[in-house]
């Protein structure tokens, strides 16, 4: 049962992280019509910001207490071997409150970094056709990944930063369950905020821009501003997801943030239904479930055994399944599991009724003409 708890905690944590990413993508694409295929880039930047701040804080707070001197050599201080020693010893000298403070500060930094980066993404978002925009953002994400993989700045090239302590580091046995609960709390907050925002006048502005940006402009919305705001909110959320991932795994490594992750998020939103927050969460639950449960270690922990060959292929099969799910959804149920509810207000109803009667009249006129 202990093992099962562990897997469940893993899944809930991933569900939370993917849920926030899905909500983020949903705001940008589902509600505003911006296909942000560079999603992983914003998650990565949030993760990097969180990782850099966290490691810097841990170093400055714990190193003196541990008596280890850390100096930056050919790169940031937190990449050095001495830094690693500090990280492993940090739990001994930093109380939970400090660890939590570092965590919160990093999450905020991540959100800010994501939001700041969105300003860069706004430029292409205004000018390009949707599939070209998708490619641009994808390419931008890859540039970031390649550069951070090779360069010692900002996250120690291919080694990455490792050993960042979880806020629950002192609760050895229950750390993963506690962290899962914390992550779910963040998901709840993100969902409440997103639901509120998308049902507000701002949300209607997003949909107006998505459905017909020329009409929206005429109606009085500042289309460029609305798009920029949408990306801002989405990217801040993405940054938070990145920070959560960092503290969950304790690592920051460029290799984690591959375009595959963007595609998993897209899959979640398409599966669940675009422009629908519950749908996004549903999709995230399914996708994160696939990612966590289709692993040899997870299945072993659950007591399920399969032939060796299948077990070996499992980590890859899950992606095959995700791909197939995407294709099936696009073909047979493109609106997703939970379709977008049309906006029903008394005004809309009255307008529809009037329109219907007018069209009927036209039809009668046409027939009766000689």
């Amino acid at each position, binding site marked *: 049962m202990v093992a099962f708890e562990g897997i469940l905690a893993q899944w809930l944590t991933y569900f939370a992280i993917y849920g926030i990413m899905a909500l983020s993508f949903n705001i940008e694409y589902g509600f505003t019509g911006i296909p942000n295929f560079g999603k992983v880039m914003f998650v990565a930047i949030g993760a990097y910001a969180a990782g850099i701040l966290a490691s810097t804080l841990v170093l400055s707070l714990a190193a003196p207490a541990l008596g280890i001197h850390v100096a930056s050599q050919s790169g940031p201080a937190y990449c050095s071997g001495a830094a690693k020693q500090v990280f492993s010893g940090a739990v001994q000298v930093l109380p939970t409150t400090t660890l939590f403070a570092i965590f919160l500060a990093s999450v905020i930094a991540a959100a800010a970094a994501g939001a700041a980066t969105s300003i860069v993404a706004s430029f292409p978002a205004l000018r390009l056709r949707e599939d070209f925009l998708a490619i641009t953002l994808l390419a931008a994400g890859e540039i970031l990944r390649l550069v951070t993989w090779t360069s010692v700045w900002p996250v120690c090239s291919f080694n990455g930063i490792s050993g960042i302590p979880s806020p629950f580091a002192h609760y050895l046995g229950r750390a993963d369950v506690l962290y899962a609960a914390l992550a779910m709390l963040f998901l709840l907050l993100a969902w409440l905020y997103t639901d509120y925002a998308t049902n507000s006048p701002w949300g209607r502005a997003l949909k107006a821009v998505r459905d017909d940006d020329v009409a929206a402009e005429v109606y009085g919305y500042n289309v460029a501003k609305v798009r920029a705001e949408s990306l801002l909110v989405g990217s801040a959320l993405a940054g938070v997801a990145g920070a959560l991932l960092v503290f969950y795994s304790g690592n920051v490594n460029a290799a984690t943030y591959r375009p595959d992750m963007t595609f998993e998020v897209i899959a979640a939103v398409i599966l669940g239904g675009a422009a629908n927050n519950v749908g996004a969460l549903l999709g995230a639950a399914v996708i994160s479930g696939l990612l966590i449960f289709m692993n040899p270690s997870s299945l072993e922990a659950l007591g399920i055994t399969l032939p060796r060959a299948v077990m070996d292929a499992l980590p890859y099969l899950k992606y095959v399944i995700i791909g197939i799910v995407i294709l099936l959804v696009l073909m047979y149920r493109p609106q997703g599991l939970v379709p977008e509810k049309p906006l029903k207000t008394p005004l809309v109803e009255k307008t529809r009724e009037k329109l219907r009667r007018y069209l009927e009249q*036209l*039809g009668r*006129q*046409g*027939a009766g*003409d*000689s």
Partner: protein
Amino acid sequence: MARILETRDLYGGYGKMVIINGVSIHVDRGEVVALVGPNGSGKSTLLKTIYGVAKVFRGSVVFDSKDVTHVPPEGKTALGMGFVPQTENVFPDLTVEENLEMGGYLLRDEEKLREAMELVYAIFPQLRDLRHVLAGALSGGQRKMVAVGRALMTMPKLLLMDEPTAGLAPKTALELLDKLMDIKRETNASILIVEQHARRALEISDRGYVLVSGRIAAEGSGREILARPDLQELFLGKHG
């Protein structure tokens, strides 16, 4: 049968929208029939429905005694029909000559292809000089010539034309309509022509139909329709 084309209670449109509401028209062999009506009445859609470019919801289309209701556009061309759309009626990335060659795609013989092309160049001498120019680079009037020329390559027995004079200067428009008479003479084609400029079309036609809101509102010979007072407003306005 004397009828080269007949539609029976035809309903057509796009997606779920029904635009043509139970239209029955016919074209006899050797006739020029005009289809006129106010803007938005569905004239283009009728032609497209007949040709299979728009969706047929109900009814039938009979060509040369064969039921072709559900035959796709490429099949209709193979059977001897031809269509000149109003817009997007050339291959802009191909040269004039290549456009004509594509018009003659179904011709098996190199010889027949050459003959057909010579015929088109005879009817539209300007095109011979413009042979190697990209269709996309041509003026509106030149493009129309290519569009009509492309459709003529298969020497269709029935030619459907959607507003061939649209966007043309009056002089050019009249020239084109004159050419239509040449075409009819050279190829013996029957012609079903949609025109916004009702008077012009009815003057050169044997018969006409008036389409309003997707239904036939009137039919008769060109002169009859032109004479009717209740339809006068169709012939007034910009085109005079």
